[in-house]
């Protein structure tokens, strides 16, 4: 075996997979996982660990896999992460743990993410229960939102003995894991649901269909319903549009609408009632994971799809694996291109998108070279659907209905490094604080916030609630 190369992982054939919504990557078998784990050099200085946002002891869990101690590997992971089966699938490993892997200097880095996924999947399939619960302490904590941040904070506090209730606006818990990331990247029944079931097993109550700020406010949770603290993990769900002419034509959707219809409402399935509209020719504007997910979803629904992105392939913020899969599946890319107008037909439907070519100039605040339009380079692309995947920001609903809760100019809730907001007893973490980021960052922030909540409540009220 060539130790410079990764053990190949099986994936569904691109020709087949564009006809279904089943998971693309099939994961390692036990033998493959052990072989890949053996490539880890067990470096003493562990450069990979420092580049994982939650500092998983990577060589330790990989060692357990290479020894065939899969259960042990799962327990090690559980010390650091609440969602290994998810993060193993969706972390941008190439810019995190795997980027600094010593194996990567001369060959391919160890497939840390795929190994993490393997251990987590194995534990689930073999019914291994990780995490123990302490005795109930009688304190009540409300968690707003059931995405990665909410799940993590609720899980951690329940294990500490808290009485936790999650309030979720939508009718299914899971946040972006359920409404945003498609089935073919993150299976819902197989991977996401068990995480939710696990929370319930820890005693966490989940009230869906409750929109905080409308159905009930944070003030009333604290003052009338007897919650000792609140954690806000409401994400960044508000879609951006470009503000160009023609954006409200029929056939122009936010990626959120398109993905929600497909993933949460299961519009791709014949037996569900919600309709979805995908034309013959679709343009997806943007270059992140959201854009790739929308493009590959549209492709599976039978469309011819082009991604329109204003920078070059090097700057694409999406995970490398997604870009690779999208290309394999036949998604086209128009780089250095930016829409300036959407053109409609006489009935108010999209018929074309007018774009301008771009070139890269000086680096901007983000350190990436700023795209500048090339004058006179406008051209039209015939399409009947345009999906806008330009990023999202936090919904102002909670901040505008909670006294003393401050947000920055992007609408993100302001917290200190421990997740404490400007309002006593109220903590926050995840996309609602950082703006759209990643699952693992949301999880890491929620973990810190859970620890601060524990500290806050016990300092204020003692070890146990008065009966």
């Amino acid at each position, binding site marked *: 075996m060539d130790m410079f190369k990764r053990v190949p992982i099986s994936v569904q054939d691109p020709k087949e997979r564009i006809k279904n919504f089943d998971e693309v990557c099939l994961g390692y078998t036990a033998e493959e996982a052990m072989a890949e784990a053996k490539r880890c050099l067990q470096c003493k200085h562990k450069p990979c660990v420092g580049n994982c946002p939650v500092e998983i002891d990577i060589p330790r869990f990989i060692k357990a896999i290479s020894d065939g101690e899969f259960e042990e590997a799962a327990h090690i992971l559980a010390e650091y992460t609440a969602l290994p089966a998810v993060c193993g699938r969706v972390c941008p490993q190439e810019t995190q743990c795997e980027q600094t892997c010593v194996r990567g200097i001369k060959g391919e880095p160890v497939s840390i993410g795929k190994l993490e996924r393997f251990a987590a999947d194995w534990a689930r399939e073999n019914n291994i229960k990780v995490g123990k619960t302490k005795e109930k302490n009688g304190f009540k904590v409300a968690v707003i939102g059931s995405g990665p941040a909410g799940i993590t904070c609720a899980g951690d506090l329940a294990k500490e003995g808290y009485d936790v209730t999650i309030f979720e606006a939508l009718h299914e818990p899971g946040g972006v894991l359920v409404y945003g990331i498609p089935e073919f990247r993150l299976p819902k029944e197989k991977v996401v649901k068990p995480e939710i079931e696990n929370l319930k097993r820890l005693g966490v109550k989940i009230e869906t269909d409750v929109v905080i700020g*409308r159905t009930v406010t944070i003030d009333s949770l604290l003052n009338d319903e007897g919650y000792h603290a609140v954690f806000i993990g409401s994400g960044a769900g508000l879609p951006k549009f470009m503000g160009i002419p023609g954006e409200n034509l*029929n056939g122009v959707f936010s990626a959120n609408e398109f993905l*929600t219809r497909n993933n949460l409402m299961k519009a791709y399935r014949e037996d569900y*009632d919600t309709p979805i509209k995908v034309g013959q020719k679709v343009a997806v504007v943007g270059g992140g994971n959201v854009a790739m997910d929308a493009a590959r979803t549209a492709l599976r629904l039978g469309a011819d799809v082009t991604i329109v992105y204003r920078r070059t392939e090097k700057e694409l913020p999406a995970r490398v694996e997604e870009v690779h899969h999208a290309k394999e599946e036949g998604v086209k890319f128009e780089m250095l291109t930016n829409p300036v107008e959407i053109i409609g037909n006489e009935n108010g439907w999209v018929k074309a998108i007018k774009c301008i070519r771009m070139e890269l100039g000086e680096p901007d605040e983000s350190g990436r070279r700023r795209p500048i339009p090339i004058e006179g380079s406008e051209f039209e692309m015939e399409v009947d659907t345009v999906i806008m995947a330009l990023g999202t920001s936090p*919904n102002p609903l909670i901040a505008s209905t909670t006294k003393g809760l401050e947000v920055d100019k992007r609408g993100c809730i302001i917290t200190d490094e421990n997740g404490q907001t400007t309002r006593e007893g109220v903590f926050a973490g995840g996309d609602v604080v950082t703006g759209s980021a990643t699952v693992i960052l949301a999880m890491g922030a929620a973990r810190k916030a859970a620890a601060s909540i524990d500290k806050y409540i016990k300092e204020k009220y003692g070890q146990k609630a008065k009966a």
Partner: protein
Amino acid sequence: MFEIVEKKFLAPNIVSMDILAPRVAKAAKPGQFVIVVADDKGERVPLTICDYDTEKGTVNIVIQTIGASTKKISQLEKGDYLRDFVGPLGRPSDYVNEDLEEVKKRKYLFVAGGVGTAPVYPQARWFKENGIDVDVIIGAKTKELIILEDEMREVAGNLYVCTDDGSYGFNGMVTAMIEELVENQGKKYDVIVAIGPMIMMKFVCLLTKKYGIKTIVSLNPIMVDGTGMCGACRVNVGGETKFACVDGPEFDGHLVDWDLALKRLAQYKKEEEELAKRGEEKVCTCQQGGAN
């Protein structure tokens, strides 16, 4: 799960239901709406809150069957459950948060079209409870589609009923009724609130613009989440894009781009028609004693 504790037909295709949803009942205000999901495979259907009872913890909704999802909901019986019932969504009507003395100075006319009568009722009642008399017009295609007439009579100062075919009350559409009141009977209004089909609200606005009377409408575009997350409900108001579910549903009708709103409403027409057909096919096979 949310129990249907009361159900009755107001007209052949219009059904009224009381749903047990204490959290929603407690927070509801006039002008707001809910989202209802009938079952595991159902759509998220937005419906205006027509009434609420804080003590019983119930919320009243009135549904007109127009497609597959509204039909599914209407077919549920008392004692059945709705899978989901989310709300109250949207902003309450402006006057709820205004200084009551200011509101009292204005003369309001409510214009209710068809099933829109149901959401107008609690608004008119709110005024009555606050000691203000409002005029109300109820319009429908024909006599049997006039709903809540008696209830409305109790809370309205003056009630005017009209039908398109003249089978009951004034002979003509609500716009003709407004013309009659303003031009022939010399009535003066400071604010008109129009709730009904999009096309009715458009024509009411065209008329009241001529008179220079401020007009509030309750928009009912296509929605998915109803919380500001998807942008399906985009409408153009005063040249700006608004999300009807969070910025509305009530807007200044003279600023609404009606043609755009009407076009957007037809966006899923083809898919919805196919769905309705699929529903019928299903019924067919079971009648033939097929599977199950």
